[in-house]
């Protein structure tokens, strides 16, 4: 019955064939060394482990109605894992012949990477998602056209994102997000966070150890949910839009709506939330 259902609803998927290949490699890695990942059309899952080495597994699958095309195009996909003086370079690329302009198969490349703590992680990923969990490292992530998931990460982070959904649950450290046209869903963020974005939706829920949050956006709708509101100093500015203060902020000496700028000192000087937007609203809950 399931086969009939798939055949009726997704006939192309049910009839298509998959060509598949897999690589697995591991390289020793010391502290403060660099893991550089350059990937395209790949979904990365990066996790921490206790061993002083990098372990990587890559699964590449190409799906096409014609199995010969799938097999041929799978041959264009390459993978390298090279040990260098500073660490490891892991990358995948597509070597198309001159007469080919496009890959016709549906590509699915999945990485699973285990790395130790206290290393430098550099990721350049396009057309795919990147998930990093339980890692304490210096992370330099550049993701384009994919989603970013960070779970329980610590350390220093510099994240560049273009057209991504950025989801964070549990972050502690110094983080700098430079995004364009991305959506943010940040929960339990601690430490010092700076975020810049253009168009998109942004949701923030500070954690108990947040010191500083600065958000600059030109066209994003910004939602901030603060549990301990009296802990922070606020500087909220909406140039051509509305600042909407929720019921929790009723003791603020301002009207609830239509303020161009709200500055309010309620907490310790070291704890601050600064939000600046030009063309969209700020909502505080």
């Amino acid at each position, binding site marked *: 019955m399931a086969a009939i259902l798939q055949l009726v609803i997704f006939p192309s998927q049910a009839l298509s064939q998959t060509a598949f290949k897999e690589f697995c490699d591991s390289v020793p890695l010391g502290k403060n060394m660099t893991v550089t990942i350059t990937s395209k059309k790949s979904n990365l899952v990066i996790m921490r482990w206790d061993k002083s080495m990098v372990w990587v597994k890559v699964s590449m699958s190409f799906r096409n109605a014609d199995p010969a095309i799938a097999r041929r195009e799978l041959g264009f996909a390459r993978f390298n894992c090279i040990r260098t003086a500073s660490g490891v370079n892991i990358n995948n690329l597509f070597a198309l012949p001159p007469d080919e302009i*496009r890959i*016709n198969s549906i590509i699915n490349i999945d990485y699973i990477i285990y790395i130790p703590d206290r290393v430098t992680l550099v990721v350049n990923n396009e057309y795919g998602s990147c998930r990093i969990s339980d890692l304490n490292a210096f992370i330099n992530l550049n993701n384009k056209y994919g989603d970013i998931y960070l779970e329980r990460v610590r350390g220093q982070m510099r994240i560049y994102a273009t057209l991504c959904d950025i989801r964070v649950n549990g972050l502690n450290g110094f983080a700098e997000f430079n995004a*364009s046209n991305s959506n943010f869903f940040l929960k339990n963020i601690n430490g010092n966070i700076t975020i810049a974005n253009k168009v998109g939706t942004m949701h923030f829920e500070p954690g108990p150890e947040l010191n500083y949050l600065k958000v600059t956006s*030109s066209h994003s709708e910004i939602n901030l949910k603060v549990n301990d509101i009296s802990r922070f100093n606020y500087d909220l500015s909406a140039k051509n839009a509305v600042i909407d203060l929720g019921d929790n902020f009723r003791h603020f000496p301002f009207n609830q709506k239509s303020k161009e700028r709200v500055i309010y000192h309620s907490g310790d000087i070291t704890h601050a939330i600064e939000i600046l937007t030009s063309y969209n609203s700020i909502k505080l809950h």
Partner: protein
Amino acid sequence: MKRPGRYLRDMKNADPDRKRLWRHIESGILIDGLYSEVNREMLDRAIRDLPEILPVRDLWPALDQHIHTGYREMRNRRLNNYIFRIAATIVFLLSTYLVIELVVLSDSRNQQNIFQEEHVESFLNQVCAAYPKKCREADFIELKSEIIRLNNEKSEVESSIFFNPADASITKINDRINSQIGNLKSQIIDYVE
């Protein structure tokens, strides 16, 4: 416990009917001292000697026919039910697919068509023709550069080697760009009005 001899004597002294019956049994029973076993041969012979008499009205053929016809009908009905069930499932799936195709996919296609038809450049030209003063303001220029940049991103995705309309991840990127272009268009309209 009674001795067998005594037990026999007691039985013989019973009422006359019983006596007659006993005599009949006695003539055919092999006494081994314990009266424990009936002579099977005698019984078999008696069964064999039974006369063969056909019933006056034999109901069995009619009953047999009735039973077999009912069973056959039941079996046919069950087979038909099964076929109908499969046919109904296929019809249901096809109709669901058609509904999805007509309502959801055609809507999204139409939406895509609207986006494709309404190019960013023509949209900006229309806005600037309607509100020439606003067009020269710095905020409008910022919005304009942003929407043009997004449009360039869209072109980049569509010209990449991975672009495949059947690939869900590529469609997702395209949808995201389209929705953000839509957001910016509405912001531009809000700004100029």
